């Protein structure tokens, strides 16, 4: 097993094996199922179809329909199936076809899974992972493009993981399966085809361990999921102007490891938070509050700023959709302004 803490960069060397985000997830699931008979997959169209985004493609051929279980369109019973199996010794990995549809599972997740351990005096655990693709950018319009992660961040008892690259996707999924808690594992549709170095070993990236994915002195950018990639692209562009961004990826949104964020804020004195989900009530508010309430307060040289999805449903039209959530150029512009003191 690799020391995952050393592997926090998404940079790829040419002599290293690369996999896409989807392939990395698939490899993690294959290895988990090969090494642990308690692990099984359950979801809608995950068998022969391979999942709506092809993440589980081919796994039914390796493990059969007993362990790669197609369900009817029943998201409540699907979540309940994960929970009940987890309570009785299994390690299910469920798939919600689009994150939007998890709204139909909320009772089982929020009122049952999140609370069962606490409510029963710590005497049971519910170790399951529910994977789901969130995010816009595919023209799927308002009911297939949601970023609902902060709903779950607000529910103690659940963990919320959002990998931003293929390497993290594999290591975080393996950790999530063995975490012992219900884990909401939020993937991003636009990341599925992105590649990174992914070792073959079953390495783990610990949950609740925030990563500094790029060092910089001028501005801390805390970003989640695909916004990490956009922040890195923005950083490359600004670097040409002599502005160096420090990009911080929480990877696990809840429970949040805020220390590296606070340390980075102290170092740069300026913070921009970027996420795709709507601004109001979003994860960025929590990050901003934690920084403002910490020892970093005395080091801040500028207001903490947030760049997030507009407070609106995701539109269908390509141009409108593009302008609904932060893009690279928005991050460049906002970061430049912050660094130059033009806010």
């Amino acid at each position: 097993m690799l020391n995952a803490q050393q592997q926090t960069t998404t940079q790829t060397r040419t002599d290293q094996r690369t996999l896409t985000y989807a392939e990395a997830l698939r490899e993690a699931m294959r290895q988990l199922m090969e090494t642990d008979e308690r692990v099984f997959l359950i979801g809608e169209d995950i068998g022969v179809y391979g999942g709506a985004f092809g993440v589980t493609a081919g796994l039914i051929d390796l493990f059969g329909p007993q362990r790669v279980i197609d369900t009817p369109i029943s998201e409540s019973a699907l979540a309940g199936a994960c929970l009940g199996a987890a309570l009785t010794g299994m390690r299910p990995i469920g798939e919600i076809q689009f994150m939007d549809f998890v709204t139909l599972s909320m009772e089982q997740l929020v009122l049952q899974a999140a609370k069962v351990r606490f409510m029963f005096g710590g005497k049971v655990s519910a170790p399951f992972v529910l994977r789901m693709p969130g995010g816009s950018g595919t023209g799927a319009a308002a009911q297939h493009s949601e970023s609902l992660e902060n709903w779950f961040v607000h529910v103690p008892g659940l963990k919320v993981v959002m990998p931003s690259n293929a390497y993290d996707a594999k290591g975080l999924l393996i950790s999530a399966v063995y975490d012992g808690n219900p884990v909401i594992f939020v993937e991003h549709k636009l990341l599925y085809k992105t590649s990174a170095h992914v070792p073959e070993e079953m390495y783990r990236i610990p949950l609740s361990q925030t990563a500094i994915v790029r060092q910089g002195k001028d501005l801390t950018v805390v970003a989640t999921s695909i916004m990490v990639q956009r922040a890195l692209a923005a950083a490359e562009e600004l670097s040409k102007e002599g502005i160096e961004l420090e990009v911080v990826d929480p990877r696990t949104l809840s429970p949040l490891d805020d220390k590296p964020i606070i340390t980075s804020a102290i170092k740069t004195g300026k913070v921009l938070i970027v996420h795709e989900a709507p601004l109001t009530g979003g994860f960025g508010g929590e990050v901003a509050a934690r920084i403002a309430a910490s020892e970093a307060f005395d080091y801040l040289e500028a207001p903490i700023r947030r760049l997030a999805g507009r407070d609106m449903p995701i539109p269908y039209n390509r141009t409108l959709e593009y302008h609904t959530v932060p893009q690279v150029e928005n991050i460049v512009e906002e970061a430049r302004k912050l660094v130059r003191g033009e806010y």
Partner: protein
Amino acid sequence: MSDTDLQIAPDRAKELLETIGAEQAQEMLERMLLIRAFEEKCEELYALGKVHGTMHLSMGQEATAVGANYAMRRGYDYLLNHHRGHGHALAWGSDVNRMMAEFRGKETGYCRGRGGSMHIADVERNNLGANGIVGGGIPISVGVGLSIKLRKTDQVCLVIFGDGAANEGAFHEALNMASIWDLPIVFLCENNQYAMSMPVQKAFNIERISQRACAYNIPGETVDGNDVLAVYDAISRAAARARAGEGPTLVEAITYRYRGHSKSDRQLYRTREEVKAWMEKDPIPRFARRLIDAGMLTEEGFETLRQRAYQTIEAAVQFAENSPEPDVATILDGVYA
């Protein structure tokens, strides 16, 4: 919904009693008495201001709890039940001291005082807990059934819910899934005539809730839930089917709660006469009479069981009273594994 046609045939009752045997029959009766005594004490403690929260009493429904649970391999099979669950836990064989302690919010309670009356679970004995959400346990039973199937054991999951739960969408999803996969689940709908204040006659456009089984192509049966033998019989057959890999069954037990939905209920939706009429069909004297008639119990024997039940409860009250409160320093215990 008339229940006259639900009477169990005398020959069948005799047969069942022979199968159960005098010793276990007396134990079942004693458990029914214990449930009644437990809940009477709950009311008393509430009136004394010793209870922090509310409670949902199942008085009148003891035959369903005991008949169903004794038809299972208690402690080996799985149980999921609902908010009106004191009787189910006691019938599953849970410890009355730890139950009373939980009711009082004490550290020695089943859930260390974190769950209370509505969330009693005895996970060491595979009682996966009472549920505060109507229908909340039904989807979970699908996962338990699936897990049993994947682990290839011969366990069965008994999931008990009320008439109100049968109108939740989760009921439909779960029964369908259990049916398509032949999961070893016994769905027991405890029809006590009211979902809070909503009578079943207004909430359903069918004669029997068990009719819904046909939509999932599984057996459905309605039994007299105030007859412990009738419930025992139906659940035994359903459990045997499940154990044999033949899939789930929906059993509806017709019963009645004597008390209101919870402590806030002024019972404006039903008459005193109606409650009185049901009390005439009280499951405890009915079963006692059966045992006496069958020569399995004497009048004195019944009195002994009754007294023992109340003594057991008094001891439980003392145990709970003397138990420590949870330490605030442990407040976060169990939020995460």
